């Protein structure tokens, strides 16, 4: 109730809520990135449990390109803040 003592309860709820949405977004981005690059790069016959050299470099490039697509789409959507 006292305005001088920092944010009100409702404002706090909104700060917490925004932070929560922001983190959910990052987690979802990471999960989609992981699933998508697994799909694109990993040999599905599972003949061994190690990642081979080809898979490793594919993963690095896949993450890098996914990042670029995220930024490119962010620009198109006119968002000013960095999407990640």
């Amino acid at each position: 109730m006292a305005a001088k003592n920092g944010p009100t309860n409702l404002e706090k709820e909104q700060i917490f809520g925004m932070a929560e949405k922001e983190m959910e977004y990052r987690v979802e981005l990471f999960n989609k990135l992981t699933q998508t690059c697994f799909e694109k790069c990993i040999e599905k016959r599972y003949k061994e449990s190690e990642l081979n050299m080809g898979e490793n470099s594919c993963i690095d490039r896949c993450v890098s390109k996914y990042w670029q697509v995220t930024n490119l789409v962010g620009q198109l959507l006119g968002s000013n803040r960095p999407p990640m």
Partner: protein
Amino acid sequence: MDKSMLGDLDSLPEEDKIRMSAMIDQLQIRDSLRMYNSLVERCFTDCVETFRRKTLDKQEETCVRRCAEKFLKHSMRVGMRFAELNQGAATPD
């Protein structure tokens, strides 16, 4: 998603209406962040096929731009049709 639902909540005091309105705003933010994530995933999956370099080539970039623009236009059209049906304004075949 709209705020028409607030009409059902007249029995709640002003403070709760504000809280409800804030909740709707937050769901809309979550919704648009999810849409953004889905759009990136779809356009990446459809447009990026090779991993010989770590940067997008011109062709991939053009594909992603078109894909994203098309998805947004598609999404807006779906939203309009969806709203019409929600209002019972279905037109004949």
